[in-house]
């Protein structure tokens, strides 16, 4: 399938996208790196000066930094956990014969189509609000004290909201994967005397592993930079309890307008993201090859 002709053509055809993405990555990145060494606050133009590593020092010594790091990972892992486990359960349920499967599927897909801002607004105001939210009404109806989700478990609440948005994605991928499980394999296992649970453990789960890795890969890419949900619901608080790295950078960039600090934060976030990516890619790479 490969001759000199096709190979050189292939290079030419890769070029536009590679160059564009390279530019997209390199140009702002180079500017960001440059800014990260400047004392540069938007609100004080004309005062830019070389700042060495002080922006990095400030960002890394920010008391919120480690919390943000932790929160970033907690959000990624928490959402992954919920969506993968929930997704598997839901996929198995939806794979059973039932009436109105198409409609149920439509219902389940819906959250994926919603803008993150809208989703966050709806959850925050209409569900989690401790006075007027639906959960509060429910709690009061059964005689309980309404729980103030966004204040008392801010990180958990954000994880729930984000997981709600991503559950459909995981479910659908896993459902499709489930449906591709070789019918004969299931029958063979049945003949071999495997019950439903054994079939799930020994057959279904290994079969789903590839789909699960794809879910993890794609979701991680998006989850590392969860932002709108935090901005809308908790604003990173109370304290810094729901601040993740993206939000921390945001605070530098758009609250303090400290471009230098934000750039340093951005660079640090990029580096951390790439570390995550590196491990992820190695993990995924293996499963995707097979």
């Amino acid at each position: 399938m490969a001759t000199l002709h096709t190979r050189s053509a292939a290079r030419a055809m890769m070029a536009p996208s590679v160059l564009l993405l390279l530019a997209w990555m390199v140009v702002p990145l180079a500017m960001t790196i440059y800014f990260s060494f400047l004392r540069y606050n938007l609100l004080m133009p004309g005062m830019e000066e070389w700042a060495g590593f002080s922006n990095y020092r400030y960002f890394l010594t920010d008391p919120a930094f480690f919390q943000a790091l932790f929160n970033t990972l907690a959000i990624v892992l928490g959402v992954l956990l919920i969506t993968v486990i929930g997704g598997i359960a839901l996929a198995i349920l939806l794979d059973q014969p039932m009436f109105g499967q198409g409609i149920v599927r439509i219902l389940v897909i819906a959250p994926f189509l919603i803008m993150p801002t809208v989703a966050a607004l709806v959850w925050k105001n209409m569900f989690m609000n401790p006075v007027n939210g639906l959960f509060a009404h429910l709690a009061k109806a059964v005689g309980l004290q309404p729980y103030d989700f966004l204040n008392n478990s801010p990180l958990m609440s954000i994880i729930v909201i984000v997981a709600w948005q991503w559950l459909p994605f995981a479910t659908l991928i896993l459902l499709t994967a489930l449906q591709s499980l070789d019918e004969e394999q299931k029958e063979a296992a049945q003949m071999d005397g495997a019950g439903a649970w054994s079939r799930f453990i020994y057959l279904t789960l290994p079969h789903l592993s590839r789909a699960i890795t794809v879910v993890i890969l794609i979701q991680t890419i998006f989850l590392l930079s969860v932002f709108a949900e935090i901005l809308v619901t908790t604003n990173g608080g109370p304290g810094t309890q729901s601040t993740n790295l993206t939000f921390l950078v945001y605070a530098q960039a758009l609250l303090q307008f400290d471009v230098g600090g934000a750039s340093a934060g951005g660079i640090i976030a990029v580096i951390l993201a790439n570390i995550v990516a590196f491990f992820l890619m190695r993990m995924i790479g293996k499963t995707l090859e097979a």
Partner: protein
Amino acid sequence: ETLTIATVNNGDMIRMQKLTDDFTSKNPDIQLEWVTLEENVLRQRVTTDIATKGGQYDVLTIGTYEVPIWAKQGWLLPLENLGADYDVDDLLPAIRSGLTGEDGKLYAAPFYGESSMVMYRKDLFEKAGLTMPDAPTWEFIADAARKITDKNNEIYGICLRGKAGWGENMAFLTATANAFGARWFDENWQPQFDQPEWKNALDFYVKLMNDAGPPGASSNGFNENLALFQTGKCGMWIDATVAASFVTNPKESTVADKVGFALAPDTGLGKRGNWLWAWNLAIPAGTQKQAAAEKFVAWATGKEYLNLVAEKEGWANVPPGTRTSLYENAEYQKAAPFAKMTLDSINAADPKNPAVKPVPYVGVQFVAIPEFQGLGTAVGQQFAAALAGQVSVDQALQSAQQLAVREMTKAGYIK
């Protein structure tokens, strides 16, 4: 010609948006494009744009905080051609002084102005056998709040801002701290969160809210509290004077006829915890359409506009707090029972000497330096956490002190 106007999604602005037909019919060659955004988003968008000279907007809605800072940077055009009948001298002096640059020129025109005051439920006070004095103390307020509270019936004695943000909880807390004798910085820009006055203020606030506040108070801002008050869930609410027209509007409020007003409380140290704020229209230096923009600013903040609103929506809905003439208008006084209290509150605020002790900065509920947005919000986060019970008051103050020292050092105030 099309003017792009960035504005905040507050009720008065939205009303203005609906009334623009009046402007466009008078100026058929000018079209208006509205960019209505939530306050924080607006601030970010507008600041980014103006600081990078993006030039996307022709008229900006900005607060009292930004005006002096931006004017100093030369980002705003002085408003010198507002027309003969504009009557600059009619603007309330307290408001106007905040919008005037060092060169004595006006850099933004106030659309509405506000201070803060106490709004309370006369019916609940009566039921509890209490009478609200015109100038209450914090002690009285706290006591009354606890008495009124009836959590089983979802009546909370007092609703105060808790949502983190320099313009949200910190606006309220800074102003309150002033009444408690606290200040942000001493004359050498040393943060003062390690001083007992702050501890008193914050302790007082957190305890009061725990006893008599609504649940989830740490995510309540102006809007959330407004909703609570309008639905009859708050006994008292200390917040912006503009809220008066909303809570007395029977169309939106279930308690419209039961609201009383009082000055913001003090602690006997000589300062009341009321702030001073105005939303203003300004013209960025980068615009190509200065003339049209000035016409619009003049229309929106002029006297005629007040009459227009009065005619269309009634006097109670007129944007308050900008013009002396409005408060002399008998019809307005009749329609707006809160008019006098508003005017008194505005006049009682002193941005130049906000605290009991001397300070190096200007601003009642904010510190007019560029770093304040970030710092104020970060400190606000800590205080919100204290309110939510996630950290203790002492911890919150300690963190706040650290943050402030860090920021001020970084910004070069502390050498």
